[in-house]
């Protein structure tokens, strides 16, 4: 039907990263154009969603059913000629990226936000004006509207993935998405955006476990697989799990007596993000608090670099009583040849111990709204003069629980916690 020119197919993906959808398209041999809508301007709340549109641009079938394909789609839609509609009532304001990206003059907060989304969709994380666009979307999010929170989160994550990253972007993006989901808990796409980086215990399925197979099969065909710009985290490849992390064999702490010289962040910038399980986005959540995924990123400061002949960094976590994790010691990946300046990332799952469910105790005090996870990272890093040293940097990750006990999700960018306020540009 497509080859015969009777039908055109267009896909629209809601994902944060278009290159992953592009790899999927390459792997599956999809030949129709696929468009990118990371900000959810289409307003869709769940995927997949199919719409059959006639030759005049009028919707004729909502969600064509394979069960009645012949009758509904072939006979009732494809084989039929539809009359041109008469005058129709104007719909919502059009969203055209090229037009919106060029908006100028005095603009309202909403117009600035729409322009920002358009510019980011066209230029991606490398947008030269990304700081301004993030600012515009954060300004819109001050409205408190869930969709504006979501869009601010998308922009913050884009900046995290790009050269202008700030130390607080990782956590700020997650916090913004959580704020959105708290306002609209039935928004399936927003929930998935958090679950993508969240704990395996909260995943409905693995998000990107297909990537390795896709790359291998594309290579077998003699093609070069699409390069993923933003590396996949372990969380994004993790399979859905219903097993609580169980401590494995005893491991040795890399610096139990604290003898390694401290790096206060002058050589390597540490960024931390906590992705809670989305069940926390509920009206009244008491213990157990469930699982979370802790993300840690190490970025060499200007002039510093990773050595290519030393063991990669190691994270040691001592979360304290009540937390379960498979191992307190987690190794980062080696930077690899040519990766001396790249950011290294690791993520791990923690969960609170399971407790017997029973009627809630109305006299019990509300659980704390925040908890602090502590640990440290040890690493070899080379100074600008070529000298390589071994250093330790302390880790503090504040877990903020939304809900009545915790109030609003924590504000992003609080100094001294989980990264720094200074923009990535100032460090370079």
């Amino acid at each position: 039907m497509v080859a015969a020119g009777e039908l055109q197919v267009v896909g629209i993906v809601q994902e944060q990263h278009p290159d992953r959808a592009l790899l999927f398209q390459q792997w599956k041999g999809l030949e129709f154009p696929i468009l990118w809508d990371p900000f959810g301007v289409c307003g869709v709340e769940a995927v997949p969603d199919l719409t059959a549109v006639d030759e005049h641009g009028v919707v004729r079938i909502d969600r064509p059913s394979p069960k009645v394909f012949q009758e509904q789609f072939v006979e009732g839609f494809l084989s039929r000629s539809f009359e041109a509609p008469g005058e129709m009532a104007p719909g919502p304001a059009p969203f055209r990226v090229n037009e919106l990206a060029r908006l100028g003059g005095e603009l309202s907060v909403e117009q600035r936000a729409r322009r920002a989304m358009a510019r980011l969709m066209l230029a991606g994380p490398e947008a030269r004006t990304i700081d301004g666009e993030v600012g515009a979307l954060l300004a819109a999010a001050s409205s408190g509207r869930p969709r504006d929170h979501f869009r601010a989160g998308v922009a913050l994550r884009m900046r995290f993935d790009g050269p202008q990253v700030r130390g607080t972007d990782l956590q700020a993006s997650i916090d913004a998405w959580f704020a959105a989901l708290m306002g609209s808990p039935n928004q399936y796409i927003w929930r998935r955006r958090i679950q993508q980086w969240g704990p395996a215990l909260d995943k409905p399925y693995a998000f990107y476990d297909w990537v390795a197979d896709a790359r291998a099969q594309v290579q077998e065909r003699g093609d070069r697989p699409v390069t993923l710009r933003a590396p996949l985290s372990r969380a994004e490849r993790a399979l859905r799990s219903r097993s609580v992390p169980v401590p494995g064999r005893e491991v040795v702490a890399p610096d139990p007596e604290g003898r390694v010289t401290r790096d206060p962040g002058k050589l390597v910038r540490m960024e931390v993000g906590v992705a809670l399980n989305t069940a926390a986005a509920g009206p009244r959540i008491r213990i157990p608090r469930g699982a979370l995924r802790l993300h840690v990123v190490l970025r060499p400061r200007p002039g510093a670099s990773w050595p290519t002949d030393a063991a990669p960094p190691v994270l040691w976590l001592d979360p304290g009583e009540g937390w379960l994790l498979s191992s307190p010691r987690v190794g980062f990946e080696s930077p690899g040849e040519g990766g001396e300046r790249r950011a290294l990332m690791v993520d791990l799952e923690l969960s609170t111990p399971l407790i017997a469910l029973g009627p809630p105790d109305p006299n019990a005090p509300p659980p704390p709204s925040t908890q602090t996870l502590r640990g440290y990272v040890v690493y070899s890093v080379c100074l600008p003069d070529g000298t390589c040293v071994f250093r330790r940097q302390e880790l503090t990750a504040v877990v903020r629980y939304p809900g009545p006990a915790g109030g609003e999700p924590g504000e992003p960018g609080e100094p001294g916690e989980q990264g720094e306020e200074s923009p990535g540009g100032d460090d370079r």
Partner: protein
Amino acid sequence: MFLRVACLLILGLLLPTPSTAEGPQELTPASWNTVGERVPAVELPRIDGRGTVDLGTLRGRKLLLIHFASW
């Protein structure tokens, strides 16, 4: 009477139009699945970097629109 009405009319024209607190009307799922309604005027970039596609210009042939994700 006529003068009073005329003054009120002129005053109404001069007063600023109240802006919508919500801003431009946003698309919803109903924008895509209400039979008989025109598909929204949306232009989005292609993921392969080959420009953009404006759904409003896809006329003359039937269209199957698929909202999906690779996960």
